[in-house]
C-alpha cells in the first residue's frame, strides 16, 4: 500500500542530476561521486576499472541502502591525475572494452554459424 512505485528504481526524478560530484574537504585529489538510480552493475565495473589505473590510490563504491536507489563512488588519486579525470578515463575504457567485446561476439557468432553450416 505504501510501497514505492517500481519505476522509482530506474527513473531519475526531475530536477536531480544523474551524477554529482563532491570534492573531499580534507584530502587533495579525493572526491566522491553520487550516481543516481544505479547499482552494483555500474558500481563494481567502475571500481575494478579504476583499480587498473596506477594513478588511483583508492577507489570504492557503496550502495548506502537498498531503498535509496543510488551509489557513492569514492576516488582518491595521485597529484598526476584528478578524481574527475580518473572517473572519465574509467568510463571511457569500459565503453571501449564493451565496444570491442560486442565486435568480438558478433564475429565469433558468424564464425560459429559458418562452422555449423559446413558440418551439415
Amino acid at each position, binding site marked *: 500500500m505504501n510501497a514505492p512505485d517500481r519505476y522509482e528504481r530506474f527513473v531519475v526524478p526531475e530536477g536531480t542530476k544523474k551524477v554529482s560530484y563532491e570534492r573531499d574537504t580534507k584530502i587533495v585529489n579525493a572526491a566522491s561521486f553520487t550516481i543516481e538510480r544505479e547499482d552494483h*552493475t555500474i558500481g563494481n565495473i567502475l571500481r575494478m576499472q579504476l583499480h587498473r589505473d596506477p594513478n588511483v590510490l583508492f577507489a570504492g563504491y557503496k550502495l548506502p541502502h537498498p531503498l535509496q536507489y543510488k551509489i557513492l563512488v569514492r576516488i582518491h588519486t595521485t597529484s598526476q591525475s584528478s578524481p*574527475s579525470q580518473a572517473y572519465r578515463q574509467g568510463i571511457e575504457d569500459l565503453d571501449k572494452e564493451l565496444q*570491442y*567485446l560486442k565486435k568480438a561476439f558478433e564475429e565469433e557468432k558468424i564464425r560459429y554459424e559458418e562452422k555449423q553450416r559446413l558440418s551439415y
Partner: protein
Amino acid sequence: MDQRRSVSDLFNPLRPESNRNPPLYPSLIPKTLISLPKRGQNPSGAQKPPAMETTVSYQRFPKVRIREMKDEYCKFELRETDASMANALRRVMIAEVPTVAIDLVEIEVNSSVLNDEFIAHRLGLIPLTSDNAMRMRFSRDCDSCDGDGQCEFCSVEFHLNVCCDSDQTLDVTSADLRSAEASVIPVDLAVKALAMESSSTSYEAAEQRGIIIVKLRRGQELRLRAIARKGIGKDHAKWSPAATVTFMYEPDIHINEDLMETLSLDEKRAWIESSPTKVFDLDPNTGQVVVVDPEAYTYDDEVIKKAEAMGKPGLVEINAKEDSFIFTVESTGAIKASQLVLNAIDVLRQKLDAVRLQDAEENDFSELKAHLG
C-alpha cells in the same frame, strides 16, 4: 617517534627558543610554493595534468569463444576480463534488457472461475516475441501518446474473445490472443509456426497447444483487451528475457602425478569416487588418473578433503582462473539467446553513457580553484 617528539616540543612553551628544530625538510617548502603559481598560470581554466588524457588507456580486450548456440540457449567462454564485467553482463541480461509483455488489461466479460486480476497476471507472464523491443519506446517517455500507452511506438494491442458452448471444458490459451502487430505474438506460437514451416523433425513443437490462460465450462465467457508494453526485468520479472544466466570460473586442475602413483588402484578408485561430480576417471589402459571433465567440478573441495584423509595432501591442486568465465545463457524465447548477449552489451554501454560527467569544464575548474584557494 623522533618526529612526534619534535612536533610536541614545538608547542611546549617551556622549551627554549634556541633549541627549536629547524623545519624537518626545508626543501619541501619552496618546492610547493613554486608549483602552485605554475598551475595558476594556465589561463584557459582547463587544468590538464601532464600528458595524460588521450594517450593512456587501461582498456582490456576480452576474447569470446562460442561453444554451443541455439535459438534459446547459448554457451560461451569469455576470457581476459574480470569478474566485475562478467557479473555486470549477467545482471544486465537478467534485469535490464528490454522486452515486450502485456501490462494493461481491460476486461469486458469474465465469467470464468478465475478473477480479473488473476487473469491479468497470467496474461502478463506470457512471453512475447520482442525482437523490436530495443527500438521501441518506453510508454513513460513516449511523446506521441501522452504516456497512456496506446500508440504504435510504445505498445501493441491484443484482443481475446472466447466463449464455451460445448459440454467439454474449453482451454483458453495464448493461441487465442489476437495481436494487432504480426511481429509481436506469443513466443510459443512463433516457435510453432517456425516448426510447421520447416515441416521437418521438430514434431514436438508443432504439437504444442499454447500456454493455458484459463479453462471455461459451458456458458462461461472471457472477453478482454490487453496492451503490451516495453519494459525491463527490474520493473517486473515478466519483462525479463532471461530464463537463467550463469557464469562459472574455469577450473585449473593439476594432479601431482608422482604422489598419485604412490596410490594403489583401489585407492585411486576410492579417490575418484569421492568427487560428487564426474571430474576424474581412471584410464583403463595405463591405470592413470585423468581429468575427464574439469568443468564438472563444483568447487566442493571433496577430492581435496579425501586426499588429506588418505594421508596424501597436495595430491591435486585446483584453482579458479580469475579471468576466464564460462557463460550459460537461456532465454525465455522473447529474443534469441545470442541476441540477448548483444543487447546486454548495448544496454550496458547506454548505462555507462548516462553516467558520464556532463559538466566537464565546470568540474576541472572547481578543482583548479580549490588548488589555488
